[in-house]
């Protein structure tokens, strides 16, 4: 089918072999690409074995829009069984890697097995090579990219892990483009468990487009739209300014979610960062918006820069009670270099601080100086001393030390909670609870339901319906693939996306069918989880968020959340326990084997 290569590369690292596998048109049509197609391939090859065992597939996937130069579409998706959650781990990144992978002639890579030696997979138009990676094993992500670029040439794009992935830190990410990371759910640990340091791609095959002229026209129109009012925040200040508003609304996770406002937030809020630490603006691959802002330290003669997002400034800032932007910039830069998710890093450290303060951890967790904070982050990445426990993430670490330390572990299904306090954001609270991936704010973007309406919805039925719709819509965004920050540039997302898909592939897909594809993708993710032991109690929030009496007018309670979840299952046509009836699978054309 136009827009696709109709094949993927099935790589076996056990014996360093590969095969080309075909993908039927119907599968591409049903799962689109990105998170949809990678979920399909994960499910197809899933072993249900331990996530860090060789048999766990690690899937990299491009999308039909990848390589078309439509703004924000140079993105790839990763799917695997997550070592943090034991459920589906999916993560995305914007990168030239996506374009160059697709141009090698493959829509996806499915990597299984484990190499005896440290390896680098090199893929070009006609060749797949397994190169020795001994000389780069142990290097940071920036060192790795720089060495690979020197050795293989700057035409290549890379996806690589840092020391955190090598040491199987359960929240290690996969890095690319010198600053972007598929960070969440521990995809980097899975890559490390296979002794795979990096993948280098350099394809230049042409992508077949059914109606190139039309796609070209749409590309220009969309680029213009992407520079309008609907992306103003992302273009001007970036996301770090979320902090001041969330703090004002008492929704800023502070000190491990024990508080919802941070007294010193003005020191680390985006407005202050822009005034005192702004270095330059950065664009992801093939993106017109340029949401990324690079910030620089200003407290000594050895300035360090880092791309900061709001999530990082909060998880490593207010969540840890840290009020110095310089600490946050250096901690973020270190996490990037070590190849570690900043959200899980911050929230696992905040768990440890509280567990230690309450006598559950023998070792004191001291981050009273910047040096101590950076040392702790390094210890996690290298699994040194207490870092070895923290490298497991808050869920497994709290289960390891037992007692009541789980009370301070702020995760859902094992994935640490991002920095939106869900206590008074009901749609977000529901989405975090039921997300197949665990506490991810992006797979439903449900905060948008809470934020952008004339009122805050407090009817569980309305919230459940809207959250389900938002999840399916996000699945289409993540499969086509568009960047979330482009979403408000569409006048009618489904209509425009179906139009573009049809001009690209030559296959008519109606807006309604796109919606069903979103639903299908989310159902398949859920099916993967069910096959990996999911039960209803896994859809939940930490007790702390449900029973915090100190917060006045808190919307979320145990009963309220349960009621939203019941309604959510209802709108998904699932049974009361959250399982998918065979009838529903059939209706969505999902094969349950």
């Amino acid at each position, binding site marked *: 089918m136009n827009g696709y290569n109709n094949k993927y590369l099935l790589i076996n690292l056990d014996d360093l072999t590969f095969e080309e596998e075909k993908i039927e048109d119907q599968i591409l049509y049903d799962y689109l690409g990105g998170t949809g197609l990678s979920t399909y391939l994960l499910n197809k090859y899933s072993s249900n074995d331990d996530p860090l065992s060789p048999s766990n597939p690690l899937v990299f996937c491009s999308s039909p829009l990848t390589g078309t130069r439509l703004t924000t579409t140079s993105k790839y998706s990763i799917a695997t069984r997550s070592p943090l959650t034991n459920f589906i781990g999916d993560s995305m990144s914007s990168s030239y890697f996506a374009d160059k992978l697709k141009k090698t002639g493959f829509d996806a890579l499915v990597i299984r097995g484990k190499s005896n030696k440290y390896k680098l997979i090199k893929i070009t138009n006609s060749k797949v090579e397994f190169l020795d990676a001994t000389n780069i094993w142990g290097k940071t992500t920036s060192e790795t990219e720089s060495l690979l670029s020197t050795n293989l040439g700057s035409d290549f794009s890379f996806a690589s892990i840092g020391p955190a992935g090598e040491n199987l830190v359960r929240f290690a990410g996969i890095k690319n483009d010198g600053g972007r990371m598929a960070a969440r759910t521990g995809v980097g640990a899975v890559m490390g468990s296979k002794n795979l340091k990096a993948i280098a791609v350099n394809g230049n095959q042409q992508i077949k487009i059914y109606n190139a002229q039309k796609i070209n026209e749409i590309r220009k129109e969309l680029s213009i739209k992407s520079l309008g009012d609907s992306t103003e925040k992302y273009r001007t200040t970036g996301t770090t*300014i979320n902090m001041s508003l969330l703090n004002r609304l008492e929704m800023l996770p502070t000190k491990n979610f024990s508080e919802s406002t941070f007294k010193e937030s003005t020191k680390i809020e985006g407005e202050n960062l822009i005034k005192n630490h702004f270095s330059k603006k950065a664009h992801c691959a093939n993106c017109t918006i340029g949401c990324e802002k690079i910030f620089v330290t200003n407290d000594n003669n050895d300035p360090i820069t880092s791309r900061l997002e709001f999530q990082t400034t909060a998880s490593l800032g207010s969540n840890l009670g840290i009020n110095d932007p310089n600490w946050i910039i250096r901690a973020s830069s270190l996490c990037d270099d070590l190849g570690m998710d900043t959200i899980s890093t911050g929230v696992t450290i905040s768990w440890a601080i509280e567990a230690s303060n309450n006598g559950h951890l023998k070792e004191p967790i001291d981050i009273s100086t910047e040096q101590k904070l950076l040392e702790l982050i390094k210890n996690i990445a290298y699994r040194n001393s207490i870092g070895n426990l923290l490298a497991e993430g808050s869920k497994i670490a709290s289960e390891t030390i037992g007692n009541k330390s789980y009370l301070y572990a702020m995760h859902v299904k094992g994935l640490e909670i991002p920095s939106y306090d869900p206590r008074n954001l009901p749609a977000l609270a529901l989405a975090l609870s039921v997300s197949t991936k665990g506490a991810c704010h992006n797979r439903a973007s449900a905060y948008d339901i809470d934020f*952008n309406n004339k009122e805050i919805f407090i009817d569980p039925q309305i919230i459940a319906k809207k959250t389900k719709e938002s999840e399916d819509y996000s699945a289409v965004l993540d499969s086509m693939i568009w960047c979330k920050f482009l979403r408000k540039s569409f006048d009618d997302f489904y209509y425009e996306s179906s139009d573009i898909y049809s001009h690209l592939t030559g296959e008519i897909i109606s807006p309604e069918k796109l919606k069903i594809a979103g639903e299908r993708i989310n159902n398949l993710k859920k099916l993967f989880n069910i096959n990996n032991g999911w039960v209803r109690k896994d859809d939940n929030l930490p007790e702390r968020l449900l029973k915090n009496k100190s917060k006045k007018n808190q919307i979320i309670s145990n009963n309220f959340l349960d009621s939203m979840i019941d309604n959510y299952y209802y709108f998904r046509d699932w049974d009361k326990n959250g399982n998918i009836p065979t009838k529903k699978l059939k209706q969505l054309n999902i094969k349950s084997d």
Partner: protein
Amino acid sequence: MNDLLTGIILAGGKSRRLGRDKALELFNERPLIFSVIDAIRSSVDEIILIVNDSARKKELAFIKNVKIVVDTYSDSGSLGGIYSGLLEAQNSNAIVLACDMPFVSKNIINTMKNRMGSNVDIVIPETDGYKHSTHAIYNKNCLEVIDQQLKQNEYKISKIFSKCKTIIITENEIDEIEPNSKSFFNINNESDLDKANQIFNTMGKIKIKIEFFGTAKLVAKQDFIHLYTKKQVTENELIKLISKAKPDLIGQIIKKDTNELKKSYNLGINGIKNISDKKIFLQKNDSILIFSSQSGG
């Protein structure tokens, strides 16, 4: 008594102390004299403006539905004006006001009017030991006394009170009708004008806080400002107020026509609940938040 009342407004000319024409000085975006006219319009059935000469009469000719009369005794101060007005009035009783009183109270005027019995010549309010002779009701019975006084070149109005049947509205009574009334406030100089503007901006209004976030905060160069507003406003009115207080926001945060925020911004009241275009009721110390409509991150 005869319920009908004439309104007499002393609209002389250029003020010595202000250096400008007080009647035509702009207040609340229109000539000051209109504030006085509007305050008494519903309590009287005719309005007479007393002016010094025919040139002045021409100058004020644009004011509709009033009778403009040239002072019979020119250069005889307010007393002459009162005389000329009473002489011209079609009713027995007339409320006499200066043209420079921006906050004349309808309630106080109506109370004074009710106190004007058949055997009363003057009803005059007194505050701080001062009798407000240009905020008083006079009966035509006073004409003879005033005429005698003017002929003797005696221009002090206070001299007529003992010769006429005068009722005083005391400070206590006024406080009961309208606590902290600004009805007698008049403008003599620049500083009075500033004060009047200050009073105007807060009268019957509530103080609210406008908080800025993100680019709005960077552009405003402030975290928040305070504004005075009516309790009942529309989004549109609120945006206009904010535009006036922070013109820097126009273009970047507020649309150039100052009718609404740009699509990239939301207006929340005491949180993220948005203000709709319908009228909303604000309370003292409410907060209006201006924040990005893009919640992602």
